[in-house]
């Protein structure tokens, strides 16, 4: 039987390189001077400068991870840590420089903002060029700022929460790297009881070759509040490596809920080594929705620390690894309190020699009485030159738990195709339907408007089939 030709994601709209003037950039590599330069350029308070220097020291002492993807080709000394386009942060798209605005228009960001989003931040290389939120939310006390502004406007909050109690520079080498040279990103604060009905979005675009993007996202959802944050990323294809080492810190307070969706579509020269973690208090809910399509190599394992009684976490992820890609993704669920629950659904597709891996940790601490957890992994292989690996770790330190784990790997079976064909579908239609069905849980998890946006973004084309 003929194999389906499932085309890779259409990169053409992401691959347009802009001729943007850069106002300032550091030299290649990483040193105390580079860190001081970044801090000075940003005119930061001294505590942040000291924090960066401390992190640099930690970074220099820490070893590279020896597991996961092969990082031997990643040369951090050839990465430009900080590169600023000549554009000031604006609150209106009209004021964003033409070149940059056109890029974001091609990606459909301003249009999505008008139609479906409550606020948008757009980062171009190292700096945020656009940040705006609907007036009505500001009136309810919702804060949605780019990180640099937030440091100046809300120094006490940032100082308290920025890489201190959630992710810290001590966690791993790339967390330390991020802490030393972070730039841009978003700060969100949702006051007690406020429900932000329409999603907020941040879009991260890397344009300069050989550069790195290190944005920091910090979201605090106060008691009983709700917010949905969407993150999109892309970059044009270059022959040199780009590095993305962002950091996301989420604080879900009592009874609050954060939905954090990511559609990652970095170009295939990008190393995506991202750290994401949520601390969930009593009865809080964190939902991660993650689509990993781009990048050369990815290591990304969003962690949920269920700290308060009755806290819940969900992770729903799709990973699509095509030629030359090694995407090592997964989730960490750490149950520390009674009656916490977590659910993981991870799907992966690999083709043309791509490697997709699920690497996960499920930990039930001694105090997490009555915890419930389920992990489900499914791998779909579209040919016999690709790989699909599953490496879940389940650690239990308590008896009163209910844990289930399941994983399976396989290809589209001839029986499935035969069945659908007996119902009058052509072979291509049948295959297309099965692949669509396979990624359905992710499409369903996104709000409708954004699912449409995602569909455009991930355009899975099946030969003459998907209409």
């Amino acid at each position: 039987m003929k194999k389906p030709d499932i085309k890779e994601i259409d990169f053409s709209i992401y691959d347009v390189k802009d001729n943007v003037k850069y106002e300032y950039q550091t030299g290649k590599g990483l040193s105390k001077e580079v860190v001081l330069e970044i801090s000075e350029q940003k005119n930061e308070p001294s505590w942040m400068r000291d924090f960066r220097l401390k992190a640099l020291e930690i970074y220099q002492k820490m070893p590279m991870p020896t597991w996961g993807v092969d990082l031997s080709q990643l040369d951090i000394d050839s990465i430009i840590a900080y590169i600023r386009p000549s554009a000031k942060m604006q609150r209106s798209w009209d004021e964003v420089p033409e070149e940059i605005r056109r890029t974001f228009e091609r990606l459909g960001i301003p249009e999505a903002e008008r139609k479906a989003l409550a606020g948008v931040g757009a980062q171009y290389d190292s700096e945020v060029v656009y940040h705006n939120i609907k007036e009505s939310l500001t009136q309810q006390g919702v804060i949605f700022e780019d990180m640099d502004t937030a440091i100046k406007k809300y120094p006490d909050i940032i100082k308290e929460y920025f890489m201190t109690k959630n992710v810290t520079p001590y966690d791993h080498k790339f967390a330390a790297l991020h802490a030393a040279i972070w730039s841009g990103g978003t700060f969100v604060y949702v006051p007690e009881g406020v429900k932000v009905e329409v999603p907020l979005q941040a879009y991260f675009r890397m344009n300069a070759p050989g550069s790195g993007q290190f944005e920091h996202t910090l979201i605090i959802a106060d008691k009983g509040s709700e917010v949905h944050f969407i993150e999109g990323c892309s970059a044009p294809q270059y022959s040199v490596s780009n590095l993305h080492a962002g950091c996301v810190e989420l604080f879900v307070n009592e009874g609050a809920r954060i939905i954090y969706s990511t559609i990652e579509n970095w170009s295939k020269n990008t190393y995506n080594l991202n750290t994401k973690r949520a601390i969930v208090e009593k009865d809080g809910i964190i939902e991660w929705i993650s689509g990993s399509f781009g990048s050369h190599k990815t290591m990304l394992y969003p962690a949920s620390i269920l700290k308060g009684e009755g806290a819940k976490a969900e992770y729903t992820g799709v990973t699509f690894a095509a030629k030359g890609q090694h995407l090592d993704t997964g989730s960490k669920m750490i149950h520390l309190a009674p009656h916490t629950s977590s659910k993981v659904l991870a799907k992966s597709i690999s083709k043309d020699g791509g490697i997709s891996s699920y690497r996960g940790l499920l930990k039930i601490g001694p105090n997490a009485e009555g915890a419930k957890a389920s992990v489900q992994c499914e791998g779909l292989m579209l040919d016999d030159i690709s790989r699909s690996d599953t490496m879940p770790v389940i650690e239990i330190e308590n008896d009163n738990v209910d844990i289930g784990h399941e994983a399976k790997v396989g290809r589209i079976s001839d029986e499935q195709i035969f069945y659908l064909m007996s119902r009058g579908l052509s072979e291509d239609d049948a295959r297309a339907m099965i692949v669509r069905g396979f990624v359905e849980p992710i499409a369903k998890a996104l709000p409708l408007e954004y699912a449409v946006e995602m569909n455009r973004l991930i355009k899975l084309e099946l030969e003459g089939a998907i209409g």
Partner: protein
Amino acid sequence: MWKRVSMEEIQQPSYKEYTSAVIKDLSHDTVKIKETKKLAGLPTEILALRDKAFGIEGKFINMVKDFYNAGFHIEISQNSNVEKPIVIDYITNEQNDTLIDYNIIEAEANSQVTIVFDYNSGTKGFHNGITQVIAKEGSTVNIVKIQRLGDEFNDFDNNLVIVGKNAMVNWSNVVIGSKVSAFDVAVYLDEVGGTFTSKSIFLGVDSQKYDMAYKVYHQAPKTTSSVDLKGALKGSAKATFIGNIDIKKGAKKAKAEENETVLLLDKTVKSVAIPALYCGEDDVQANHSASAGQIDEDKLYYVMSRGFSLEEARLLMVQAILNPVIDLIPYDPVREIIIKGHIGRRIIK
């Protein structure tokens, strides 16, 4: 050795003689049994396995290869069906408290055999062993390994299984003894149509620590594997289960299945499961599952409403999980009295 039972502090003992192995049923004329140390040299087929990775850690393998003081080489002739099980009884006692056994089993084409290893008695001591099994074309080899050593034992067991064309190896581990017990079973399905199945159980109580690993390499088309491990943990016992299914490119129509079920009987137990699935071939069926939890309260309530005490009811539930595997042991006295009795005493304390 990430997440695994720590073996750093375990002292390797100095060399000692071991003389108390007993091998029963020597009366088969199609079976050749020799003590490994009396061989003129290791069989060429075993030497040819040098590049096959196996075992808990290199140091344990090297120790056995250099210092083995026991072990048997068992050869089953072609086309022979050895009906009665061959039982190797590794008894330990104060004089024989250091057992380092090197066992080699070669089943010639189309032969059938069942071999039981019974590591038992003693209270305090050290066991480290290698068992290498070569199942040639069309043969069926059943291996049962019972580890019921005393509570002050450190036990290490390294196994290498080579499954030939259309051959079948059925494996069973029964782990109920020792303070620290680690085993590793590496299985190479190198030729078309090979099958490996494992049905194993463990019961960990008090501060027993178990580290159990099955690594199955599917390297040829139409190979099948199934690993099923069931166990219960009580007190502050800790168990780590590693189950690797590694399907190499080219192993078309391979089928692999892996299952772990753990009953958690106390708040203070620790259970770690790492059921990994590596897949480099698309035309396969592979799945694994792991579950852990308490005994269902409704079931306990039902049994207790029939007049059983809580402990008896718990024992019944544990037995319901473990007995189907124990019943496969073709070795009556051990099965009925010792193992089942042992489990009963350990659950009701």
